[in-house]
């Protein structure tokens, strides 16, 4: 693996290997007092975040540090980025300074692809930490890791994704990864929050959440961004919550073994009721914990040389 730009195009073997590595790392670290592996000692990882994000940036930073990499965080506000330097120049500068891996979060779809293109003559690896409305592959990997822990194999499992699929990179990455791992994906959203062209996706589309919940093994509730609420995509937050929110009554429609995921940050009372978010089958904190292990696995596969020790 040269870069991780998208979940689309990951084959089942590679995805499974990443998830197995993540599970192995989790076991290795379990109960250790000092959570530090020497695997990436001497390697430099730079995170470039052009959008504010706490959980993803911290997760990548921990992943690097727990494997002894030197991790440097660049944010758009506190660097020459703020002075109008182009993404291309910033990336070339950081790589020339010695980055082995650049992790990028950017509001423009395709930014990670462009970065990989500009860095193609360098050995640096690029990891997409979320590009516009396109993809967020490590989020999909951590979701899959969390689902595998609870459900075992994802083969034939029915997984619902509910909410703003149109603008969601999390949804796009999950559709690719979950179907690649053998799951059936059911998308539930009002027509205004579905992309034109979704017919070509390997998913079932529904506008009736109540009809879908009883047959799901897992449901993933997407965050409804504030700007969508005022963008005329649906009449009101109240109506959205009534029509598509995971209320306690709705959560009760899920089979007993089914689990609830949310990529965060949650809007309690909007897409998910507060008590549902705190229920035992809601795995939001597991997702966050698995995020670090999955990102360690990604960095390991991109950066650790053949026969590297420590895992």
């Amino acid at each position: 693996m040269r870069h991780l730009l998208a979940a689309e195009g990951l084959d089942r073997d590679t995805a499974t290997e990443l998830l197995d590595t993540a599970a192995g790392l989790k076991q290795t670290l379990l109960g250790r007092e000092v959570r530090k592996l020497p695997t990436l000692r001497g390697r430099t990882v730079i995170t470039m975040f052009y959008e504010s994000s706490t959980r993803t940036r911290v997760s990548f930073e921990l992943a690097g540090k727990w494997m002894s990499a030197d991790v440097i965080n660049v944010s758009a506000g506190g660097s020459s980025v703020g002075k109008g330097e182009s993404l291309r120049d910033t990336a070339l500068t950081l790589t020339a300074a010695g980055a082995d891996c650049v992790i990028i979060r950017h509001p423009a779809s395709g930014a990670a692809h462009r970065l990989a293109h500009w860095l193609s003559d360098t050995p640096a690896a690029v990891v997409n930490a979320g590009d516009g409305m396109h993809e967020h592959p490590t989020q999909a990997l951590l979701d899959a890791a969390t689902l595998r822990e609870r459900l075992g194999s994802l083969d034939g499992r029915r997984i619902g994704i509910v909410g703003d699929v149109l603008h969601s990179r999390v949804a796009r990455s999950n559709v690719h990864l979950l179907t690649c791992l053998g799951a059936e994906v059911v998308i539930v959203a009002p027509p205004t929050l579905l992309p034109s062209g979704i017919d070509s996706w390997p998913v079932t589309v529904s506008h009736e959440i109540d009809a879908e919940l009883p047959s799901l093994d897992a449901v993933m509730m997407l965050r409804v961004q504030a700007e969508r609420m005022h963008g005329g995509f649906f009449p009101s937050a109240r109506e959205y919550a009534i029509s598509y929110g995971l209320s306690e009554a709705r959560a009760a429609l899920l089979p007993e073994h089914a689990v609830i995921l949310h990529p965060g940050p949650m809007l309690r009372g909007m897409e998910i009721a507060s008590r549902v978010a705190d229920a035992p089958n809601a795995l939001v904190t597991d997702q966050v914990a698995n995020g670090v292990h999955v990102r360690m696995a990604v960095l390991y596969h991109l950066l650790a040389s053949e026969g590297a020790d420590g895992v």
Partner: protein
Amino acid sequence: MSETLLKGVRCYGDGEPVDVLAANGVIAEIAASITPPDGAEVIDAAGQVLLPGFVDLHTHLREPGREDTETVATGSAAAALGGYTAVFAMANTDPVADTAVVVEHVRRAGEAAGLVDVHPVGAVTVGLAGEKLAELGTMAESAARVRMFSDDGHCVHDPLIMRRALEYSRALGAVIAQHAEEPRLTVGAQAHEGTQAARLGLSGWPASAEESIVARDCILAAHAAARLHICHVSTAGTVDVLRWAKGWGGGKDTARGGAGFAVSAEVTPHHLLLTDDRLAGYDPVNKVNPPLRTGADAKALAEALAEGVLDCVATDHAPHAEQDKDCEWQAARPGMLGLQTALSIVAETMVRPGLLTWRDVARVMSERPAEIARLPDQGRPIAEGEPATLTLVDPEARWTVRGAELASIAANTPYEGMELPARVTATLLRGRITARDGRIR
């Protein structure tokens, strides 16, 4: 003035090879064999196709304002090399061509370059803002003699402003060229709304944003008894609307300046050849407005051009600086070079599949655009006594596009490295050779 003898050409690609002598700016003689007069430049053009010089209704020459990407002079060179003898320079310069001063500057710069007739297009509204009519009459009466007005790059979206522009233009004998894009439907739009945009996470530019404006404006033009030209048609749905509109007025002939309902339309080479499949790597050389559409759209456009529902080919030649293209997709400017590749792309998409003959190419690249713009001395028949404003094409040539070798200042192009058929070997403007064998004269 020097004389030029073209030997062994096939006029419009038809019939037996003939010799054509250009002297004193006109076609002096057409005969099976002409002895070269003393001092005449002889072009051995055996097997080549002679066409009337091309007319481009849609070019961005970027002067004034972005001379780092193109000037009237460099754009004129690109035009001559591409076989053009007249180009219409769009108004979205900086300052905007919404006054007589600016259009006269562009006109004079074109005359100074002397390679192609540069006709400035005037803005419809002040500053392209869509709010207040620019001084159309003053521009029409200026030394630039503006006869085409457009806010291209922006849609004249307010129906009342558009109605007034259409009505007012009637007295000037002018045509309003509309960039059909309902702006409320394309807020933040980045790519054709469809499966590719959905997959790539790019905000959609829906076909309906074009089609709804085209339908509206056809109706407004009919009621105003004015002439409307639709820029860069990009969707199969727009073709349907135009077919309906042209029939509604009582047949295609009304589109030729007859009473009532007069709408014409252009298609760009890139919308004939390229599709949104090219967006996969997010390379902004493929970013253009309106966006690259689907293969089905491209096919419908080619058929409509063959049928005459679309009148002509126009390049929408739009140079952009490297830094405005080699960046994130969302940050990139829309537009691509077009003048030097247009003929080859028409050959590739229309002539090779048998949709157009070379005779038809003369119609869509020269005669119809000259009629739409009412240019009296362009798009003329290849006949004795007519202006020697001609383009010579080698239909068998193949060449590989290299952006750095094109005459424009901007060098980025989606056709980089692409091998294309047919090449312009000589361009004559009123008897004067402006370009020959890839070099400017």
